[in-house]
């Protein structure tokens, strides 16, 4: 036998047809048709808004702007409170207001009469503002030209609690004309509040509502929230609100 003419051992093996330079993959495992896939998603639907709210907070902080959420029931006096706060603060701060409403710009125009820039945010049929809408509105104003931003939410004591906007402080406005149970009926929104304005105190007697009980209700739900009785038509209590907000 010629030593230099070795017969290939694997002559009949199909491996002869493989190119030795190609890596040998084991073949991709695919699901067969009709197979069931069980996937762990762990997707928190509310997280997307929280993330945007954090971004808004960061943007506001970069420009040194203090943003205050103004929330509360329909007709409780949110816009009136903002107007009175503007009267007190305008000499010390440059102020802007975001006004959330379903479709009209009535309130935004009322605020604009004070000579303060007012951006209406129409939510359409949505019952609350969200961080996305606020983010869009932030791009419409020059943040370097303001110090304080009031964000007035749509009148609602339920949904806004689940949608942080990125503000530094939160004030909830309720009024005695809503009756004595308004606070204990909606505890969750008060858990996020820094200040609670109990408005229309001039009507408390007519409504047979005990303002002190309402203050106690705030304290039993959230001891950190500061309850302040107000009359936003005369301005009574508004200086205390401003102080409680740290402005």
């Amino acid at each position: 036998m010629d030593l230099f003419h070795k017969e290939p051992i694997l002559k009949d093996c199909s491996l002869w047809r493989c190119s030795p330079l190609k890596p040998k993959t084991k073949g991709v495992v695919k699901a067969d048709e009709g197979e069931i896939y069980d996937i762990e998603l762990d997707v928190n639907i509310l997280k997307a808004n929280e993330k945007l709210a954090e971004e808004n907070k960061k943007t506001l902080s970069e420009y040194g702007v203090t943003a205050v959420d103004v929330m509360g029931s329909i007709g409780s006096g949110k816009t009136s409170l903002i107007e009175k706060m503007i009267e007190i603060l305008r000499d010390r701060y440059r102020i802007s207001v975001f006004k959330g409403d379903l479709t009209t710009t009535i309130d935004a125009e009322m605020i604009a009469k004070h000579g303060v820039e007012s951006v209406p945010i129409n939510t359409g049929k949505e019952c609350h503002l969200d961080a996305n809408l606020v983010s869009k509105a932030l791009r419409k104003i020059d943040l370097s030209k303001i110090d304080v931003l009031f964000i007035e939410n749509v009148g609602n004591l339920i949904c806004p609690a689940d949608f942080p906007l990125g503000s530094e402080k939160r004030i909830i406005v309720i009024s005695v004309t809503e009756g004595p149970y308004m606070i204990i009926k909606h505890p969750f929104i008060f858990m996020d509040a820094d200040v609670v304005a109990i408005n229309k105190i001039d009507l408390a007697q007519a409504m047979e509502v005990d303002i002190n009980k309402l203050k106690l209700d705030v304290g039993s739900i959230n001891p950190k929230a500061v309850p302040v009785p107000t009359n936003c038509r005369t301005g009574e209590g508004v200086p205390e609100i401003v102080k409680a907000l740290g402005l």
Partner: protein
Amino acid sequence: MTTQIVESILKEADKRQAKRVMEVDLIVGSLTFLNPDQLRFWFGVLAKGTILEKSHLRIKSKEGTVRCLQCGFEGILNCVDDPVYHIPVPTLLCPKCRNVVEIVDGKECTIKSIKMVI
């Protein structure tokens, strides 16, 4: 909210070219404004005509849990009895040291898992 949930699931199913979604596991925090019965109703309505139709929706409720930064207490969100109206009112008061607790859980709406047919 239900629309967002349905859209998220359809997006995920579309990624894997699923033919049908069989089961959906949802966790709803008790501190959200979401009502599981309402969610279930609207889920059924929105799923019609999609690959989610006839899928089995399981909703698990998650209790609100709190933590006290002062004394370290951790537990379920407490309720106090209102002295005037005698109804339970949720409170951020720590049951141990009377300081203010922070909420650590119960504010989410999570799609935990989905089972689909490829």
